[in-house]
């Protein structure tokens, strides 16, 4: 069956990751890593704590093994209203960072560990909402 509308929206990923640089850590140490993201102009994403239960929150996932994820700090949201959304929303716009605190166990193997993660988000403009998407990233951690 022929498509009725251009499927161009499916090709748009409003949030992109800035590839993280190598992080150098000592065994037994702790560090906070900023994973930076960019966002297309005109879009916003729900914060990690949306004001309504139906809204899809920003969700940072990281597989830290063999290291440990000690905490996540999401970007500070702001409250906005939009032309076609009268109720206020807790959103993030523009470039932002998620801070991940990583513990390195004393017995962690030395060398480079590539920690894989994803950021799930749901983006809208003031008139359309895109289906939820995920952007994948890798944090290269060098344990010395």
């Amino acid at each position, binding site marked *: 069956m022929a*498509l*009725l*509308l251009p499927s161009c*929206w499916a090709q748009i990923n409003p949030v992109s990751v800035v590839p993280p640089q190598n992080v150098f850590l000592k065994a037994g140490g702790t560090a906070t890593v900023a994973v930076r993201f960019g966002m297309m102009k005109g879009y916003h994403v729900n914060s990690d704590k949306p004001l309504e239960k139906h809204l*899809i929150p920003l969700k940072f996932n990281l597989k830290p093994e063999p290291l440990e994820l000690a905490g996540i700090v999401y970007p500070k949201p702001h409250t906005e209203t939009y032309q076609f959304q009268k109720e206020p929303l807790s959103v993030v716009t523009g470039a932002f960072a998620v801070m991940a605190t990583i513990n390195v166990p004393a017995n962690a193997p030395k060398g480079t560990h590539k920690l894989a993660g994803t950021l799930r988000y749901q983006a809208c403009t003031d008139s359309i*909402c895109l*289906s939820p998407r995920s952007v994948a990233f890798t944090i290269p951690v060098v344990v010395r």
Partner: protein
Amino acid sequence: MAFFKRIHLVVAVFVAITMASCNTATNAALKPESKRRQAPNFTLKDNSGQTVQLSDYKGKVVFLNFWATWCGPCKEEIPWLIEFEQEYKGKGFAVLGVSMDEEGWDAIRPFISNRKVNYRVLLGTPEMADLYGGVDALPTSFILDREGRIAQAYVGAQLKRKFQNDLFELLGSQANASNGVAPALLLGTN
């Protein structure tokens, strides 16, 4: 160096074309009958588990609305669709809401109950959405004429009066008889 500059230019043009084709503008008027395409048939379940086919609605003007509980602009349209259903249900018209919520009825049921949705809501599937171009941007709506052809497609939030005027045009004298208001007099603020 010149090669890389050219590559950048090609990429920039491609992105610009892609973005331009993803606009939310809608033609001012309904498509002429000669240019309308048949809406793909589908079979989905409604809130009560009943099987619904689009072909069941042949002979009616149908407002096919793709939405989701997480879509803000979609929520703004719901009261209008309730109003349209209430006003024109007996005049050869039906609203079909197709929810694209991945969480399914657990998310949809309380949402539509709270908002007292009076039209039929169906749970969409990716396969069904593909028939309509993927429907990756919400809200997306189609208005179908009595022959089941797509008279207009709307991507993104629209003005209520745009929907009203298009509905009036398709419903013809039946709509006018319902409230005595001529389409040209519809000057709502939404």
